[in-house]
């Protein structure tokens, strides 16, 4: 059990860091969706199914979709800070 949780936390950390680093905003949104999904699995494993359900539905599905819609209306790639 502890190995499963450690593994999931490591994936979660990796995707959280990559969500900050990615220049491609679509990839960043998907990475933050993965963070939410793993958070939901962790909530379930830690015996909080109510929170897990809310996290999976709102965090992983709806927020990701809203961000994707927002990206579609704006720009997909982040620009360099120095250009601004």
């Amino acid at each position: 059990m502890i190995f499963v949780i450690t593994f999931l936390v490591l994936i979660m950390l990796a995707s959280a860091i990559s969500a900050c680093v990615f220049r491609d905003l679509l990839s960043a949104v998907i990475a933050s969706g993965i963070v939410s999904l793993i958070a939901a699995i962790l909530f379930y494993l830690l015996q909080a199914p109510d929170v897990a359900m809310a996290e999976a539905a709102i965090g992983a599905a709806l927020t990701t979709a809203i961000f994707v819609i927002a990206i579609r209306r704006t720009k997909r790639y982040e620009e360099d800070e120095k250009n601004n």
Partner: protein
Amino acid sequence: MRRIISILLLGIVALGIILSISKIPFGIPKSKVGKFYIDNGVKETGATNIVTSVVVNYRGFDTLGEVTILFIAALGLGAVLSTRKNKVERKIEPASLILRTGCRFLFPLILLFGTYIFIHGHLTPGGGFQGGAIIASAFLLIYLGCRERRISERGTKLIESLGGLIFVVVGLAGLVISGYFLRNFLPKGIPNLLFSGGIIPIIYIAIGFKVGSELAGIIDNLMEESG
């Protein structure tokens, strides 16, 4: 220079958090109210899901505030997005046959699952917010799969308002019948049955409809804008 200052500030914040948390023993329940809910929750509210008994019964007023916040957020989003007058009818590219069929097949199942979650909120994990979010994700699926379909804005507004109204009316009925707002005035019944828990299932069904239609309306607003 800016970097040094930000690192310094971050260090101060981290120090503050460490100092305040290190005094709390890890894993030992400090508050007595949690144990009270676990011991007396089922007996006092008739709901076997302790989380629901706290959310709707003991802290029902907080939930009313939460629902109000969601309502205002959806309203604000609608107000901001509907100021754009230049709504152009973009040509919608239809999704592939496999996607359409899959969406049509999955949509009622997800809807049924969401409804199950909020009707059984007082018995099994879940409740109005979770069920509503699942229902909204079913509508999201329909928007992605069958793109020409739209839910009527008037319908979502009506369901949303009715849900909020039922919540407040049930609360006021408690005030009139037994003395204070949101009191559980209905018979509590036998725990573990569907018709138990007094006003809890009524409120959670109202919240489920409200949250579901609100989030579906938000998605509808955004999709309409993005064409």
